[in-house]
């Protein structure tokens, strides 16, 4: 009876071979001890159905993997932002001007913004459930989606910077800074690959976890909970009820911030000239349009909007 039970248990477990061997060995030890006192039938019955036990293990492994994957994504995102900050305003940028302009700069600039939003959703979800014994199974898929988008964008940053280094390294002049930039990009590539490996592992672990009672996802609730805020947005721009109004407001704020940032980096806003205003308007429009496009393309996938 015990052997048949253990065979069934082993068949239900979709876990690494080493983990399966340990679980089965522990179950065997327990059942033999219990059978010596109560008989094999009673021992097996008291232990519980193999499928339920396997589900508990699947949930636990999927939960651990989702947490690790979120942590790796957070590290990759932090490294990408530090690299971009160094390029944007530090000595690296001065010695590698291609990285801050043209196609490379454009890809990095927009990919970084999408990575920050997707990463924030993933990190907020991790932070919300970090003290729970298990990550809620109905949130696993959404967490993986957020991490996948964030890591994909970081990969785009790595590739655009790497292409810039390869094409322009010869004309950069100062090879020391070029080497520093190459090392920094390579470092980010390694962290991103570790994040992708973590995500693949997390996806594999969450595959056997079936969710029967699918709850509606709420990215806004996760963000507010992570920031320990209980404030509610005014109903007319609530992300949950009026996602496009919220998007337009957010896009406008991003556009204004981008225009102001560009004006400040370009030598300050005084005196305000027609050229400065025109450039600001163009930047604000491009940034705002990019936010709306990103919301349209990824909002549904990230479950930010219905």
């Amino acid at each position, binding site marked *: 009876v015990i052997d048949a039970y253990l065979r069934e248990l082993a068949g239900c477990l979709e876990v690494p071979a080493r983990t399966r061997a340990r679980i089965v060995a522990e179950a065997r*030890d327990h059942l033999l001890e219990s059978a010596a006192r109560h008989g094999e039938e009673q021992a097996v019955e008291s*232990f519980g159905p193999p499928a339920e*036990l396997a589900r508990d293990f699947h949930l636990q492994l999927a939960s*651990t993997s989702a947490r690790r994957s979120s942590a790796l994504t957070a590290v990759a995102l932090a490294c990408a932002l530090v690299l971009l900050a160094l390029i944007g305003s530090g000595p690296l940028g001065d010695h590698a001007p291609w990285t801050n302009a043209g196609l490379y700069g454009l890809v990095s600039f927009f990919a970084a913004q999408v990575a920050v939003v997707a990463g924030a959703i993933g990190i907020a979800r991790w932070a919300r459930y970090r003290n729970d014994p298990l990550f809620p199974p109905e949130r696993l898929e959404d967490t993986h989606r957020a991490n996948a988008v964030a890591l994909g964008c970081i990969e785009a940053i790595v590739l655009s910077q790497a292409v810039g280094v390869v094409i322009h390294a010869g004309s950069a002049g100062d090879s020391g800074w070029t080497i520093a930039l190459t090392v920094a990009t390579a470092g980010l590539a390694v962290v991103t690959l570790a994040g992708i490996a973590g995500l693949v592992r997390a996806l594999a672990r969450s595959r056997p976890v079936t969710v029967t009672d699918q709850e509606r996802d709420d990215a806004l609730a996760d963000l507010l909970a992570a920031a320990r805020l209980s404030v509610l947005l005014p109903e007319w721009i609530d992300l949950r009820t009026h996602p496009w109004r919220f998007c337009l407001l957010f896009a406008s704020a991003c556009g204004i911030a981008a225009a102001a940032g560009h004006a400040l980096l370009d030598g300050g806003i005084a005196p305000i000239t027609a050229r400065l205003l025109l450039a600001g308007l163009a930047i604000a429009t491009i940034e705002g349009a990019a936010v709306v496009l990103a919301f349209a393309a990824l909002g549904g996938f990230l479950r930010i909007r219905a």
Partner: protein
Amino acid sequence: MRSEALKGHLDGLLLAVVAEEPAHGYEILERLRDRSGGAFALPEGTVYPALHRLEGAGLLKSTWAPGATRRRRVYALTGKGRRALGERRKEWRSFSGAVEAVLAEARA
């Protein structure tokens, strides 16, 4: 006692039981049953995913130990587990005190 009600407190109970002395899974369940006067009767397999999770969180550590007839996985509390147990005891005292106060008021 319903096993669903118990599940929310299972981690703390397991830490408390292992804190007495390192033990293997069956022994841990026996202690849990004995100390609760038989009230905590879970499907026995339930404790293993919880023990693995606590080990993964660094609150327990486990090793294979030779027994009279076979090897057994023995669990022991770590320093982090001891601190976590202290926290859980404090939380439980505060929570049960509050529930008791409300129930007592309702009775009056």
